[in-house]
C-alpha cells in the first residue's frame, strides 16, 4: 500500500494562553474522505491551518505523500498539492468567478503583461465540467448563493492542482439538499483520486459522508474510527467526554393574548432583494415560538424588521397590541422588547467598552440607570456586576473590556443583559451559539422562566435540538417564506429537513393555535 496522503505526527500548537493542539496524530489515506469532529474550540481549524501552512506548529511534523514537509506559507502547501476551503470563504466578492479561481496563479499572455482571460475562463469552465459543477465563469461572486460560492472555493483548490482538499465546516451553511450535492461532489473527487478532509460538528453527516472520523477534544485526538463501526451516540460521547442528554424540562404554560405579531411582512435585504416574503407570525404571551431554517433564508431580516433595525417594505408589526411598524428601535426597547442579536460582536456589544458600559446598551436612558439624561455610573456598574454573577461571566469583572472576553462569555453577558430587562417580548437569535454546554442549559432555563413570567418569546436558531425542545410552536423558514408551523414535539427530523428545503410533506403534525386566548 502507498503512503498515506497526510500523516500528521504529534502536532502541538500553542497560542498565548491557549494550547490549541496537543500532540495530535492524524493519518488520512489517499482517495478517502476523512471527517474531523469536535466541539467549538476543540482545535480542528487550528490543526488544519497547520497542515495548510497558515500556522507553524509549535512542535511535530507534517508528512505529505510520505515526504516530510515544512510549510512556511500556504504557497508551500499549495505546491505540495493541498487546498483548503475555509470556514469563512476567502473570495473577493466584486470579482468574477474566473478571477477568483485563478487569483494568484493567473494564466498570462503578452510576456506576462496581461492576464489571458480567455485561457482562464476556459480552464475554469473545463474544471467545472469535469467535476460536474454548474457555475457561470463570468458571474460576479457577490451575486452567488452560499452553495455556489463553496463550489468556487473547491474549484480554486482544484485549479491549483490540489490532491488533498481540506474543507472547514462545509455544511454549516447549506440546506440538506445542498449538503447532498456536496457529498456527491466528494464522490466525484475521490473517484478522481483526490483526498478529502472535512471538519464538522454534525455527527450524522460525518457518518454519512466519511470513511473515517477523527474526534478532537480540548486539542487532543480522542480517537479515529471507521464510520461503519460507530453510531452517533458513541461519537457524541467521544466529543463531549460524557454522556449527552438532549432534553430540557418544560412545564406547560397558559398562553395569554398576542404579545408579538408580524402580519404579511415583506423585508428586503441590503441588496434590495426580498429576503422575507409575506410572513405571518403571532406569538402569544407565555409562548415560545421557534423558527428553524438554514441560515440565510430570511431569518436575520425577519428578526431585524421585528426589532426595528430594518424597515420592512410592507406589512405590519405589533407589540403588545400596539402597531409598532413605524416605531423607532428605541420605542420598541422602551416598550419592553428584549433582543439577543445574532452578531454579538458587531451589534450586541461594543467591543472597546467595559462590561459596565455594555450593560447599559439599549437602556442608557432607562430611569433605572439615568435621570434626565445623566447616567448614574454606580448603578450601571452594580447592574453589570449582577449580570456577571448571575450568568457566571468570566472574568467576573465589570471593568473588563468586552473584547477581552471569550465568545461564549460575551454571549452570556448579552443574554443576561437582555433577559434582565424584565421584557414583555423577547427576540432571541441563536442565543446559545458558541456557549459551553453548562451555560446552554442555564440560558435555556432562563428563557423558559421568562416564558412562565408571560413574555412572548421568538426564538431563532439553527440548532434543531434547541428549537425543538424549547418551542411551543415551531415555524420553518425557507427562501423568505414561513413554510409551515409545526408541533415541535411531534415533528420528525426528516420532516423538518424537508420543510427546511422548502417542501411540504402532507403528514406534518401542525401546531395547534395557542395564541389569541383570553388572559
Amino acid at each position, binding site marked *: 500500500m502507498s503512503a498515506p496522503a497526510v500523516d500528521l505526527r504529534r502536532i502541538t500548537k500553542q497560542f498565548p494562553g491557549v494550547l490549541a493542539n496537543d500532540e495530535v496524530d492524524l493519518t488520512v489515506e489517499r482517495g478517502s474522505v476523512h471527517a474531523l469532529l469536535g466541539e467549538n474550540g476543540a482545535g480542528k481549524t487550528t490543526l488544519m491551518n497547520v497542515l495548510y501552512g497558515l500556522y507553524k506548529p509549535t512542535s511535530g511534523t507534517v508528512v505529505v505523500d510520505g515526504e516530510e514537509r515544512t510549510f512556511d506559507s500556504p504557497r508551500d502547501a499549495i505546491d505540495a498539492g493541498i487546498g483548503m476551503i475555509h470556514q469563512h470563504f476567502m473570495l473577493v466578492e466584486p470579482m468574477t468567478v474566473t478571477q477568483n479561481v485563478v487569483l494568484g496563479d493567473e494564466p498570462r499572455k503578452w510576456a506576462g503583461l496581461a492576464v489571458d482571460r480567455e485561457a482562464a475562463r476556459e480552464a475554469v469552465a473545463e474544471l467545472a465540467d469535469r467535476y460536474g459543477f454548474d457555475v457561470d465563469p463570468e458571474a460576479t461572486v457577490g451575486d452567488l448563493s452560499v452553495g455556489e460560492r463553496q463550489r468556487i472555493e473547491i474549484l480554486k483548490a482544484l485549479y491549483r492542482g490540489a490532491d488533498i482538499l481540506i474543507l472547514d465546516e462545509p455544511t454549516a451553511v447549506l440546506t440538506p439538499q445542498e449538503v447532498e450535492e456536496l457529498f456527491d461532489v466528494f464522490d466525484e473527487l475521490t473517484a478522481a483520486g483526490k483526498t478529502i478532509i472535512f471538519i464538522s460538528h454534525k455527527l450524522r453527516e460525518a457518518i454519512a459522508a466519511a470513511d473515517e472520523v477523527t474526534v478532537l477534544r480540548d486539542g487532543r485526538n480522542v480517537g479515529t474510527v471507521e464510520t461503519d463501526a460507530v453510531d452517533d451516540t458513541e461519537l457524541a460521547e467521544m466529543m463531549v467526554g460524557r454522556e449527552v442528554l438532549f432534553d430540557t424540562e418544560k412545564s406547560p404554560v397558559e398562553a395569554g393574548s398576542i404579545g408579538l405579531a408580524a402580519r404579511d411582512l415583506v423585508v428586503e435585504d441590503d441588496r434590495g432583494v426580498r429576503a422575507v416574503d409575506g410572513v405571518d407570525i403571532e406569538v402569544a404571551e407565555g409562548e415560545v415560538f421557534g423558527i428553524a431554517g438554514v441560515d440565510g433564508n430570511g431569518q436575520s431580516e425577519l428578526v431585524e424588521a421585528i426589532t426595528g433595525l430594518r424597515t420592512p417594505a410592507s406589512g405590519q408589526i405589533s407589540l403588545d397590541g400596539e402597531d409598532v411598524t413605524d416605531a423607532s*428601535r428605541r420605542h420598541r426597547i422602551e416598550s419592553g422588547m428584549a433582543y439577543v*442579536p445574532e452578531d454579538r460582536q458587531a451589534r450586541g*456589544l461594543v467591543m*472597546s467598552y*467595559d462590561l459596565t458600559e455594555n450593560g447599559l446598551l*439599549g437602556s*442608557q436612558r432607562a430611569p433605572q440607570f439615568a435621570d434626565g439624561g445623566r447616567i448614574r455610573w454606580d448603578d450601571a456598574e452594580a447592574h453589570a456586576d449582577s449580570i456577571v454573577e448571575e450568568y457566571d461571566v468570566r472574568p467576573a469583572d465589570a*471593568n473588563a473590556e468586552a473584547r477581552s472576553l471569550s465568545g461564549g462569555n460575551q454571549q452570556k453577558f448579552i443574554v443576561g443583559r437582555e433577559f434582565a430587562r424584565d421584557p414583555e417580548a423577547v427576540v432571541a437569535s441563536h442565543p446559545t451559539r458558541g456557549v459551553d454546554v453548562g451555560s446552554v442549559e442555564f440560558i435555556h432555563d432562563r428563557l423558559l422562566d421568562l416564558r412562565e413570567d408571560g413574555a412572548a418569546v421568538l426564538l431563532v436558531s439553527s440548532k434543531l435540538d434547541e428549537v425543538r425542545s424549547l418551542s411551543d410552536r415551531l415555524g420553518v423558514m425557507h427562501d423568505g417564506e414561513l413554510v409551515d408551523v409545526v408541533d415541535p414535539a411531534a415533528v420528525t427530523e426528516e420532516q423538518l429537513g424537508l420543510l427546511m428545503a422548502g417542501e411540504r410533506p402532507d403528514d406534518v403534525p401542525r401546531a395547534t393555535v395557542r395564541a389569541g386566548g383570553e388572559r
Partner: protein
Amino acid sequence: MNPDRLPDPIAGLLGRLVDASAGERLLVSVAALVTAILLGGVVTLVAGVFAECATPIVGPFCYNPLAVYRYLFLAPLFDSFVLQETLKNSALLLFTGLAVAVSFRAGLFNIGTQGQLVLGALAAALVAVWVGPAAPSGPVGGALIAVVAMVAGAVVGGLYAAIPGALKAYADANEVITTIMLNFVASDVAFFLVSAYFQKPGSGSVETRDVPAAARFGPEIALVMAIALTLLITYLLWGTAFGYDLRTAGIQPDAADYAGVDAERMVVTSMTLSGMIGGLGGAVWVLMSVGRWVNGVPSLGFDGITVSVLASNNPLGVLFAGPLFGTMQAGSLSIDFQLGVPRQLVGVIRGLVILLVAMPEFFRTLGVRWGMGGGR
C-alpha cells in the same frame, strides 16, 4: 485605578475616561512627542548645513537645535509677549481641538471645522458690530455684546456643520469631501459678504468694522471659557446618555443602532455640536485676537485636527495638546526672529508628532525590545 474610593459621580466619570487603554495612549503620545522632537532636532541640524549664516554653531552647522527648542518651549517663560501669544493660541486651539474631537468621537471625519470657524467668526463680528450701539456702555454692556456675538458664532458654525451632517445622513454623501468643499465655499462666501455688504470703509483689506472695544477680552478669559467648555464636553460625552449614544455611534454604528440610537439624527446632531464649538472658536478669535473679521483667517480649524489627533480625541487630552501646539506656534515666531531658523520647522515637527502618534505599534515594538529585552 480604583474609582470606588472617589466620590460617586466623579469616580464613575473618571473611571470611564481613564481606562487602561487611555493610559497606554498617553504613553504613546508622550513617546511620539519626544521622538518627533529628536527627529526635528536632526532636521534642524541638517538644514543648517544648507543655510547661510555668519556664525555657525560648529563646523558647517548653522542652526542649533537646543537653542531652537529652548525658544520653542521656554520662550513664553521669559518673554511676556510670547506668553500672550501662547495663551491666545492655546485658547483657540482648545476650541478647535475640542470641535474636532467631538466629531471624531462620533465617527465623523469633520475636516470642516475651518469653514465653520470662518463663518462663525463672521457672524460674531457682524453681530457684535450690529448690537454694539444698542448695548449699554461699560463692562456689562461689553459682556452682553460678547455673549450675543458668541452665541451667533456658535449658531452659525453649528448650522454650517449641519449641512454636511444632513448630506451624510440623508444623501449618503461622504463627509470628508463635503466638508473640504465647504471650507472653500465658506471662505469665498465670507469674502463676498464682507466685500459686498460689510466692508470697513477706507480699508484696503476685506474686513468688517471693529467690534466695540468693550466686548473684547484677553486670552485669560478665553482660556477659562475654553477649559470650562472642555469639562462640560467631557461630562456630556461620558456622563450623559446623549454622550453614550454619540460615542457608541462613533465607535460601533451597528451597536448604536441596536441600542436605539437614531443614526441619522446622531450624525446631524454631533456635526452640529462640533460646528457650534468651531463657530464659538471663531467668535473668540474675533473678540480676543483681531477685534473684527478679516479675510485670511488662520488655519485654526486644521490645527484643531492635529490637536485632537494628538489627544486621541479625548477632551482631557485636548487640554494638554492644545496648549502644547499653542506654545510651539508662539515659539515658532521666536525661532524665526531670534535665531533666523525658518519657522515652518514647527510645521514639520508637528507633522512628525502626528505621524508618530499614529503608529503606537512602533513604540510597542520598541518597548518590547528595550523594556522586556528579547521579544517573545
